[in-house]
């Protein structure tokens, strides 16, 4: 397909041809890596084609028609790299995040994880837990006192509180899925126009007919490296139209789940909730006075849009893990939560042996966190996250 390959690790320009017809497909940069010095540890050839969809499709189709070649399964490259010992599990987990990272803050968080930041923290927790367990066990097998040592229980409560602090921190999923910013308000308030102005292109249909937006529209954007999922919702009103009514019900749910609410209605109509930006829309219309505490925005002239985006970014940033800190993902949080629950029980247990059991449960939660127990689950969970061919 390429003719003779160059030496390993030397980039060479080659004309790609369909081996069965001789038809030229593309002129590409071809790189060869010999085992074991490759990303997966196997022999690898890399094609760097021109980026058009058609070129990529035809090259893939021709490759797939060659006997013994097939498309890689989701995560297969990483899995092979892992199986061949090129990377370990934590690196694989970090790599998975890195591949999925779409914004700067996602990338940094993934890198921190890949560098073992979480592993180190778990190690510290585990050490403290082991010390607690050891003390409980000493009291069981050698102690004369039947009551639980108050200091032991106090330390259990301390460790629990520390885990809770971590659990309350923003999750890594926020980084991945984006901070949910919901634009809401009464019909015809200019929500869709505002969304389009914020995105910088027409994503939502805008008419003067109230109730145009029936289902919500989600647009992922990045503000200063912060991932945002911007959502336009149906205007809130009583509606006899079934489709619109469903849209309105959804809008209410979305408002409930919003991280940041951009409210275009009357300032007094929105409940006092955290992180609400009141927008005084259509500020270009004559005779509209901006109420105190609202941002005047005109989707038409662009007035105030930058200020609104700036304020959204500031609020969103608070919801994201700090770039240099370690964020837990859902799986990790589940196990930390389990450990915290067990520690809470130990802290309030009236029975030494049961408290020791609670501490053991907490330890095994950490074991599952690092993959020491339930190996199969960890691997499955990890490798199922990769998308095709990475």
């Amino acid at each position: 397909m390429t003719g003779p390959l160059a030496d390993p690790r030397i980039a060479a320009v080659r004309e790609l041809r369909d081996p069965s017809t001789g038809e030229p497909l593309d002129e590409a940069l071809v790189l060869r890596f010999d085992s074991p010095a490759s990303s997966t540890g196997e022999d690898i050839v890399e094609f760097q084609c021109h980026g058009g969809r058609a070129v990529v499709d035809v090259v893939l189709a021709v490759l797939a028609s060659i006997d013994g070649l097939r498309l890689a399964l989701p995560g297969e490259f990483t899995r092979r790299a892992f199986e061949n010992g090129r990377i370990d599990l934590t690196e694989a987990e970090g790599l998975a995040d890195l591949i999925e990272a779409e914004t700067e803050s996602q990338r940094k968080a993934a890198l921190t994880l890949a560098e073992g930041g979480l592993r180190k923290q778990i190690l510290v927790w585990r050490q403290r837990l082991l010390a607690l367990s050891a003390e409980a066990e000493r009291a069981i097998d050698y102690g004369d006192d039947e009551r639980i040592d108050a200091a032991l229980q106090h330390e259990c409560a301390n460790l629990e509180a520390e885990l809770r602090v971590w659990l309350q921190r923003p999750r890594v999923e926020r980084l991945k899925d984006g901070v949910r910013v919901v634009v809401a308000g009464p019909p015809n308030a200019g929500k869709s126009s505002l969304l389009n102005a914020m995105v910088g292109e027409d994503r939502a249909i805008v008419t003067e007919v109230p109730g145009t937006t029936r289902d919500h529209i989600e647009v992922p954007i990045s503000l200063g490296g912060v991932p945002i999922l911007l959502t336009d919702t149906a205007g809130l009103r009583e509606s006899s139209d079934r489709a619109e009514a469903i849209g309105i019900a959804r809008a209410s749910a979305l408002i409930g789940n919003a991280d940041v609410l951009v409210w275009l209605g009357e300032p007094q109509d929105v409940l006092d909730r955290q992180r609400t930006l009141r927008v005084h829309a259509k500020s270009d219309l004559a005779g509209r006075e901006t109420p105190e505490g609202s941002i005047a925005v005109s989707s038409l002239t662009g007035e105030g849009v930058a200020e609104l985006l700036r304020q959204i970014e500031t609020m969103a940033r608070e919801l994201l893990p700090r770039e240099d800190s370690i964020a837990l993902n859902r799986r990790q949080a589940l196990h930390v939560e389990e450990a915290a629950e067990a520690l809470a029980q130990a802290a309030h247990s009236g029975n030494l042996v049961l408290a020791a059991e609670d501490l053991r449960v907490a330890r095994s939660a950490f074991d599952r966190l690092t993959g020491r127990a339930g190996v199969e689950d960890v691997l499955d969970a990890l490798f199922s996250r990769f998308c095709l061919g990475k």
Partner: protein
Amino acid sequence: MHDVLVIGAGHAGCEAAAAAGRRGARVGLLTFRPEDAGQMSCNPSIGGVGKGHLVRELDVFDGLMARAADRAAIHRRMLNRSKGPAVWGPRIQADRKLYRAAIVSLLTETGVEIVTAEALRLIVENGRVAGVETSCGRMSARAVVIATGTFLNARMFVGEKVIEGGRRGERASIPLAGQIRGIGLGQGRLKTGTPPRLDGRTIEWARLENQPSDSGVWMMSALDDGHGPPQLNCAITRTSERTHDIIRANFDRSPLFAGSIEGRGPRYCPSIEDKVKRFSDRDSHQIFLEPEGLDDHLVYPNGISTSLPADVQERFVRTIAGLERVEIARAGYAVEYEYVDPRLLNQTLEVRDLPGLFFAGQINGTTGYEEAAAQGVAAGLNAAAVALEMDEVRFDRRTSYIGVMIDDLTLQGVSEPYRMMTARAEYRLSLRADNAMTRLGEAALAANCVSDRRRAYIEQHFSLRSTDAWAETDEARGDLLYAPYVERQRREWEVVHRDSRTWIPDDLNYGAIPGLSSEMVERLSIAAPETLDQASRVPGITPAALSALYVAATRRAAA
């Protein structure tokens, strides 16, 4: 021709011989001195926290120790009574003579032949054990259990005095040790020690705090052989600042610190010189004065094992309250001995690379009569299985302390004498001293190793469980107390169970698994785990190594 030969008539050897005999094997029990059978060489007590669990478990398989303990008990205490049934520790003080007599009598019932001879070397034919060369000639057998305790190349230390040999006045089996080392089984050296024995007639008992025997009657064995001997009191005293001064001034005369003992002793049962050195902030250590028998004036001062010279022992002992005028009948000493790396055994205690050869007891790096006896039962049952082609008997760490111990020994090995503690059992709430029959009754019946009387008793126990009266039993109340926790553990088991179905092929070349460091390869090769679950308990195995192993094992299975 015997089916099974057992070398050594200590606690492990006697149990192994009797267990094999109960499964129908023709058993020969080889010993230098037949009068050693059932000898309590160290403290005259059986049971305790963790250890009592082992005794109750081996009792389900009709082991000897629990019944012998009941027949010889002159003092009973249920330790940890207030901490809940999971950690109750039944412990008795035994009259040494009565205990020995009980073991000999129970052993005789099983039809084991006691052979007075020295085992010189093993006979190996076609890659498996075929018998033992003894001082009285060659003896053939299909399986051999080595239960020689500390007798392999042992050295005794009393201060600067070093005596080659096992315990006082006893011989060490040196040629056999050489052969075992030749097969590659020798591992390292461990040490253990005893306190001086005191003449009870010279102790001022009246000045000391009394510790009476438990008033409520409980038995070690489920089979009640009738009333045992009368009960005696123990007494409690303490070391003083003066005691510690004398010990400190003579550190250089202790073989422990002078460097002549290289073996490691148990951290949790240290000698008094160790305690004084390591816990220098403590100004006093507790001592239990335990009578050794009804018609014996010897007293065992539990808590001051030592290898200091005899004159120092006498001086420091006399600084202890109540012991100011005490006479030492026999000085304390330390024993250093060689042990076999138990990681080379599989979970039936058979040597992986030499079929038919079993090891049981202190030679595997454990300490304590109960640990030895429990291994003896396991090795005996399985030696009979090999000899008679019966089913092997495996002990699971989820259902027994015996399983915990064997799993720990064979996967983790030992770096200090292994002693049973409840902390070693992650399923402690389910493994109680009071529910051993429920946990192991079916396994004991299936192994076909119990008397008719025991069988009837086990069956009766299981039928009682299905009646309304069951709720009134202590065991049922214990179940109720721990029920929510046990339920959660059951769910946890399921995960473990999945890992335990991931079998690791026994010919798997760890060195060829990508991503395993050479350290991991070494640890895994020695321990040779059979399943992924077992591999997760090999010490120092990292999650990354475990996942690499998982991938390699499942890949092999798929190929």
